[in-house]
């Protein structure tokens, strides 16, 4: 098991290098620092001198890959590639456009992101799995039929509609919870209720329908027939047997996203004014802050790879047939 994990971690390194190279090519080769300077300075004030100054301020005034003017090790390290891309591995993200330290921003913004994403994930999983099990329990009845219709209708509604409609109805018309904002501690719960509820509701349609298909596939298996033949009640069959075996395909889709919860939800955070990583990313995209986008790309891929690893581990925990070699 340990050997397997170590090998998997080593396998992640080339992937991270690939991500790093890809972002480097995207951000510095396709799109040169001169272009970035021009975008940041705006059309009006672009003079060659201003561009040079901007590049010097942000550390982009070095050669891309190889510095011929420097000596010794500096030939490789005193370059944009080393300064901006290689340092990502050490989680050294540099500064954002407004001069703030990106690493510090990320650590302070993780909490609010998790405060929303974690309840959405847990409550959402609980509700969708129960709803799917209920549909399977009442399979081939009108309840099942209309439940599926409801799922299809719900997944056809844009997530923007859930957010805008929920904010308008609950906060603006009924004044039940504040429309947006965030504060830490217990007092912050009133800010969290609506975004969490909307996050859960907007995910119900697609996931429930998917889980229902998985459970239906399981329910035709032989072991289920055996369980029924033993005289087990339908509830026992569903919860003890079908749910357990259906968890395996569900795990594939679910565990992978757990680490990504740190990244938060772009839309929810931005609409509800939560100072998390999602809204940070959106603001960076809108302000065309390449340094922040680059940092988020790197963190996102690290978390994704962690998620893949967790998926493998959870497989071996849930399914004893799977052995890690």
């Amino acid at each position, binding site marked *: 098991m340990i050997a397997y994990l170590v090998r998997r971690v080593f396998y992640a390194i080339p992937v991270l290098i*690939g*991500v790093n190279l890809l972002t480097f090519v995207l951000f510095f080769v*396709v799109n040169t620092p001169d272009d970035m300077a*021009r975008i940041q300075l705006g059309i009006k004030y672009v003079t060659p001198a201003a561009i040079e100054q901007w590049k010097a301020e942000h550390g982009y005034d070095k050669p891309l890959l190889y510095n011929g003017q420097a000596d010794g090790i500096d030939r490789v390290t005193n370059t944009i590639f080393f300064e901006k891309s290689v340092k990502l591995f050490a989680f050294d993200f540099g500064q954002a456009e407004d001069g703030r330290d990106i690493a510090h921003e990320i650590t302070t913004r993780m909490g609010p992101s998790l405060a929303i994403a974690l309840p959405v994930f847990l409550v959402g999983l609980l509700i969708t799995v129960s709803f799917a099990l209920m549909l399977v329990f009442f399979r081939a009845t009108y309840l099942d039929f209309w439940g599926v219709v409801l799922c*299809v209708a719900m997944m056809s509604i*844009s997530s923007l*509609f859930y957010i805008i409609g929920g904010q308008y109805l609950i906060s603006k018309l009924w004044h039940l919870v504040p429309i947006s904002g965030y504060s830490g501690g217990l007092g912050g719960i009133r800010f969290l209720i609506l975004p969490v509820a909307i996050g859960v509701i907007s995910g119900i349609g697609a996931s429930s329908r998917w889980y229902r298909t998985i459970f239906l596939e399981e329910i035709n298996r032989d072991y289920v027939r055996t369980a029924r033949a033993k005289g087990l009640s339908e509830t026992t069959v569903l919860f003890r047997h079908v749910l357990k075996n259906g968890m395996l395909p569900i795990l594939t889709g679910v565990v992978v996203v757990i680490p990504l919860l740190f990244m938060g939800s772009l839309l929810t955070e931005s609409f509800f004014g939560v100072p998390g990583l999602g809204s940070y990313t959106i603001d960076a995209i*809108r302000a*065309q802050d390449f340094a922040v986008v680059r940092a988020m790309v790197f963190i996102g*891929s690290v978390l994704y790879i962690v998620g893949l690893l967790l998926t493998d581990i959870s497989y071996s925990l849930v399914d004893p047939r799977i052995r890690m070699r």
Partner: protein
Amino acid sequence: MMPFDIVILWTDALIFVLIACIVAAGFYIRSQEHLRTSWRRLVENRTGMAALTVLLVFVAVGFADSLHYRPAPQVGVWSLLDALLRNLKTHTEKTYSAPFAVKLDARETVTGPDGAQMRIYPRLVYGGAHLANPDESAADILWRARAACVHAAAGWIVICAMVVALLACRSRISFAQALGNVLRGETATAWNAALFAVGAVLLLSVPALELSSIYHVFGTDKVGNDVFYQALKSVRTALVIGTLTTLAMLPLAAVLGILAGYLGGIVDDVVQYVYTTLNSIPGVLLIAAAVLLMQVFIEDHQNWFATAAERADARLLALCLILGVTSWTGLCRLLRAETLKLRELEYVEAARAFGVSHWKIMSRHILPNLMHILLISLVMDFSGLVLAEAVLSYVGIGVDQNTISFGSMINTARMELAREPIVWWSLAAAFSFMFTLVLMANLLSDAVRDALDPRMASRVRRAAAAKAGR
């Protein structure tokens, strides 16, 4: 000498190619018995047939909006849809007005005949302008809507009669017999569902279109543009993004997936590495990065694009390509896994024993057996992409500002909910159009999956057998 110049934008050309491909594929399927049987399962499905009919109406709107021309030199590009809806395009008011309103939704100061200044809601320039007394508008709308419903019903009856007559002609039975078959749902193709959908569409669209020439059915937005017109224009953007994106990713996913699965070894390792790497970058961020770069590129090469329409179109196409390049990994993984299974089957082994080349095996034996996966994912991705466009436009990495889309409509209308009195009609129009489009696409994709997926087909049959047995 033609009075206007025909303009073919890049996306237009690709849409024409796509339609030509679909027509060619249709003829090919007709000629192959085994393909025809699986497609017949699709047209037998009532929900699928109804969804298909509604989607075809959307496609017709989008197609009419893709035939571009320039009415006169030095004038912006128009489309056939603009020409058909000339009233909607040109009837712009000063600012907001509610659906079916005859007065503006904002007060203006006017000087009365006696010199006194008053704050009143002024009459609209076009909406209900034919009425002498604005209070009569409700009665006028009702009367006109009733007339339009009668027209719609008449049109529907004509269409039904034509379809039934055609069916009667083809199977050489009497008109009454054919009508009975359709009503009882005993036709091979689910004509009753299709005709029902046609009726529903007519009942909604004919009154809306007839009233739209004298009223603003969905109101007007901040700068006085008709919202109904914008919603109709958004249909094309949504269709382009939903179809051209999958078109961009299909070749990449198919070629790499089959190569990796069939050849194995180092090719497999490289392909797997590439898609794990791409997959590990969160989708929105990869799209954002690529779109930011594209923006810089377009701004640096302004002189490539003669008109604003061309620039907006190039941006739309680039967005499709970016979405395609960032989302092919899932399909590629699916195809690779399926190819791994197919490679071990006897008929591939037999082909190899006969000395058929690798290339021939992949194109003649493997690819046709993956076609159902390709088609299913093409239809299933469509609805997701339409929804994604709205989100991307909100984040600011969507279509050009000059392109009308559901996302840009929602984005501009979002702030208007805070206005007093609130402006809800832009959002309502965008969301209801988008909901209808996506819902129909989801229903169709379910039907397509049921019809084409062999695994699904066996399950459906099993379920039907279980039902019949009970």
